[in-house]
């Protein structure tokens, strides 16, 4: 199926990507080609087939509700682009 520029702009917004004009034009072609590939599946008869979410026939395990992690905030925040006083800094959200 062929995508339009409007489709591409909407998907880019959902994916939180700042797609450029030139790239959007490229997506119209290449994503449409990928969709042509995956569209082959529409012809397949899957009536009555149970969807397979993942390979193991298992139920989700539960663990006891106990604290298992130690406080490593400083250690972990060393990877933050901008942090101060234990908080992550971002551009102002509320004027």
């Amino acid at each position, binding site marked *: 199926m062929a995508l339009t520029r409007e489709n591409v702009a909407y*998907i880019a917004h959902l994916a939180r990507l*700042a797609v450029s004009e030139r790239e959007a034009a490229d997506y119209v072609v290449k994503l449409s080609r990928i969709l042509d590939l995956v569209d082959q*599946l529409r012809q397949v008869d899957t009536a009555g087939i*149970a969807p397979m979410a*993942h390979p193991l026939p298992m139920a989700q395990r539960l663990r006891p509700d106990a604290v298992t992690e130690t406080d490593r905030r400083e250690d*972990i925040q*060393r*990877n933050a*682009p901008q942090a101060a006083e234990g908080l992550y800094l971002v551009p102002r959200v509320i004027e």
Partner: protein
Amino acid sequence: MERQTIAALGRALRAREVSSRELASAALEHIARLDGALNSFITVTADQALTAADAADRRLARGEGGPLTGIPFAWKDIFCTRGVRTTCGSKMLANFVAPYDAAAVERLHAAGIVSIGKTNMDEFAMGSSNETSWFGPVHNPWDLERSPGGSSGGSAAAVAAGLISAASGTDTGGSIRQPAALVGITGFKPSYGRVSRYGMIAFASSLDQAGVLTLTAEDAALLIEAMAGFDDRDSTSANLPVPAYATDIGKSLAGRRIGVPPEFFEPGLDGECGARVREALAVLESLGAQVVEVSLPHLSLSVPTYYIVAPAEASSNLARFDGVRFGHRAEGATSLEDLYKKSRQEGFGPEVRRRLMTGTYVLSAGYFDAYYLQAQKARELIAADFRAAFAKVDVIAGPTAPTPAFRLGEKTDDPVQMYLNDIYTIAVNLAGLPGISVPCGFARGLPVGLQLIGPAFGESAVLNVAHQYQLATDWHSKAPPEAPLVAAVAAKGRSR
């Protein structure tokens, strides 16, 4: 230089014929001397390696330690390594220092492995040629103008060229087996759930599985025996005992039933590659195995199914990269949404962005049933084909990749052509099965891989057939010549 298996190195270490420090120093020297031609490493951790080697030597001197104690090893840069930069081949994580070790890293370190560094890979493991890495493509040591395959291309090239005897990889759609085939080494992916995914940067959570790239199936058995096992921190870790793979590989092939699906030999397969695989099947027959035809009628659905399931899961997993808590942050953002969008646009490369777009689309309102749900049903059809086949045979055999190594740049303009390169490996991930690629000869001077696939948690059968094949053949010991690498490094030095 001479390539050595970890089985042989382990024996030499325990006999005190060589020290771990000597092996680590040799690996570091090989990397310094030759990796300029390959670009197989992103980060080399020389100091940590020598410290770990000395610790291993002290254990060995006390008569302690096991088969892996003191063996140098490299990690695909998708495994978190505490205190060491872990990039996943992406600008997004170019400065990320992992605050913890992946479970696989913990386990091999406990077994005495000496980590030498982190290998190059396709960005977030999304690629089949190692060309999507932010750190540049890896070159195939058999022909430096060709791709080593991907996404574990750095691990593959490093082992093939003898920089290191073994390295880890991850396999979401063929990312261990295909590069192993393209550089002429052994690449083993255990069943989904066998090795903990904890600390392995996620691509597609229902498909991702850790494994190894080695010179032999015996080495793969030794490593996976130590890496595998239940881990509470991975919600899909299999709570099953780990068989003694390194012992099981010794069994005779007499009476083993090997299934060959005609769907693996359709026109897309290069004629010479097909011939090499058929010759390998004849070798297995001569060892007492019985080769029978089995059918995988839905195999052709694998590529379209994968290119819905994997991007969908990736678009969800990679939502965590927002420029706030870790990873790349764009300058000059005016709002929080602007920060997200610019950071992600700048931090991810073109192929990752393309897959995030695809995944977001197939999960979006109005399309979920037509794409994602339909793909999950097709996935069940593919898995059911394998279950039916494994009622009749112990192992399924076929080619690993449709062609030998292709040229760098040859497929980068057409994502669909690149995706079709994974046609024989992807179904194995969709069904969650173990698979191995072993070298089985050459086509036009380039290595060809034989793929062996087992039933879920049937790693022993796969490793057994691969090992017995390697006892009867010597394709796995064919090393690429070193001279072109030396010349390429020298030429680079001159052009500087």
